[in-house]
């Protein structure tokens, strides 16, 4: 009996030593396992190129579509932003206004809310400009007096405010006429708003699609590794340990998909750059197409990785629990 007891103690100590891993060791092995899992998951994707490529391509396309639409909307918005600058309200003043009255009108215009700047153009200045630009200089010599009125150019802060400003300015004394040729711009603004909403809706729908695709791929992976999962659980693998490689796979699928999507988008903007520049030249515009950019690239990676991770998480949560040792 005594012999048994001493044996017991011996076993206990040995067992304890087996369990006695210091915190540092544990952290180190935890980190190592993360590294090894990342490496293995990458290798696994590379080792099954066809299956992985299909999933990654689906993700890439699903990311490319909303991203391309987003870039189009952003580019058009920049273009219309350029037009914004020339989107001015012309305010024509009644003839014979005195200088003091003009001054007080200037102050009133500047005082309106939503006004960025007010520029005064005297009748004489307008005439000079017309002479210089129109080429009718000599014909103007025959006029007895300057037919042009004094005018102001009012620059609204926002295109959306333009209509309201026009009504307000029309109410002012001494104002003869107000002109705004911006309806098409406002329509464009509305379209862009719709475009942005469409990007969100499309992005959400395709994001959901990516989650499902990754989820399905991970589900298949879990099923094909059923035996391994059973054994790992039997020898004391925690749920987190079992989950980890699948989560990494999902993350990698998403990131690879995002990388390929970035590649597609870059190709697309190169492809479109030529025609767009030609078109811009025709309109005497400095506009040139702007691509994803570095921060856009990072956001794309983040979205891709995040969506992949979510898909994997859902699949893992649903299917791993069902696999238990028997």
């Amino acid at each position, binding site marked *: 009996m005594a012999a*048994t007891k001493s*044996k*017991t103690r*011996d*076993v*206990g100590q*040995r*067992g304890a030593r*087996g*369990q006695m*891993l210091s915190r540092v*060791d*544990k952290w*180190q*092995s*935890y980190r*190592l*396992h993360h590294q090894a899992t990342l490496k293995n998951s990458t290798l696994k994707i590379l080792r099954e190129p066809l299956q992985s490529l299909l999933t990654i391509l689906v993700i890439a396309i699903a990311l490319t579509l909303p991203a391309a639409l987003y870039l189009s909307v952003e580019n058009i918005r920049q273009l219309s932003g350029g037009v914004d600058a020339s989107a001015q309200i012309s305010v024509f003043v009644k003839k014979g206004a005195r200088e003091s009255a003009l001054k007080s009108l200037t102050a009133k215009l500047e005082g309106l809310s939503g006004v960025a700047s007010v520029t005064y153009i005297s009748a004489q200045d307008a005439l000079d400009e017309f002479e210089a630009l129109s080429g009718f200089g000599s014909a103007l010599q025959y006029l007895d007096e300057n037919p042009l009125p004094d005018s102001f150019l009012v620059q609204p802060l926002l295109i959306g405010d333009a209509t309201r400003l026009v009504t307000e300015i029309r109410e002012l004394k001494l104002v003869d006429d107000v002109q705004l040729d911006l309806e098409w711009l406002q329509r464009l603004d509305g379209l862009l708003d719709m475009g942005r909403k469409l990007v969100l809706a499309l992005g959400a729908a395709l994001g959901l699609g990516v989650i499902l695709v990754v989820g399905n791929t991970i589900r298949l992976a879990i099923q094909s590794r059923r*035996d*391994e999962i*059973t*054994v*790992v*659980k*039997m*020898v*004391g*693998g*925690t*749920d987190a*340990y079992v989950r980890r490689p699948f989560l990494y796979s999902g993350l990698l699928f998403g990131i690879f998909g995002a990388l390929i999507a970035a590649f597609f988008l870059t190709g697309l903007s190169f492809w479109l750059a030529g025609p767009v520049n030609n078109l811009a030249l025709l309109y005497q515009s400095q506009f040139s197409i702007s691509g994803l950019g570095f921060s856009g690239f990072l956001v794309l990676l983040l979205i891709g990785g995040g969506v992949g991770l979510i898909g994997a998480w859902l699949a893992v949560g649903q299917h791993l629990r069902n696999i*238990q*040792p*028997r």
Partner: protein
Amino acid sequence: MIRFDNLCKRYESGYEALRGVSFEMDAGEMAFLTGHSGAGKSTLLKLLMLIERPTSGNLLINGKNINRLPHSKIPFYRRQVGVVFQNHQLLFDRSVFENVALPLQVAGYSQGDIGRRVRAALDTVGLLDREKHNPITLSGGEQQRVGIARAVVHKPKILLADEPTGNLDPQLSAEIMALFKRFQDVGVTVLVASHDINLINRMDMRIMRLNQGQMEQDGVSYGGY
């Protein structure tokens, strides 16, 4: 080390696999669990592996009641237990070494520790020269020994075996049993479920016999059929 206290297990189908089983095993003791198929041997082992939970009664391991062990603690409990299966459950997508290393990887041992311990375990079962082979290329007896190496590589306090010699000829079976005896000699509590009567009788060990979910006999000498 192991204490069953009036344990009952009724499956959801209504089948009563164990009906009031009580027994105790000291640390470093070895025993055989026998009985007809369907007598409850597998269920008893599953309770010890926490694959199944008892319907009533208490199950104490090392003085601790593990009936209500939360799900999240189960992996840590299983790290103190080694299990050998009849179909050995080896993974054929990796080498013998990697199969045996699994319990250590799971518990977060360092690479160097894993190498040392895996080789020691393979040496014990006499398969040190096969570490790089795929287990599918090994014979049935060798595969079972790999399974045993995996069960003991993390030096568990308890070693459970479910029909470990089920598919082996008498010669190999005797070798496997001798191997279990060696683990008992170094202080491991060993419980082997088997219906290989001849083999068990020759081992001269404690034998527990289950019949229809009840402990029919518990002693060193075996009454036989």
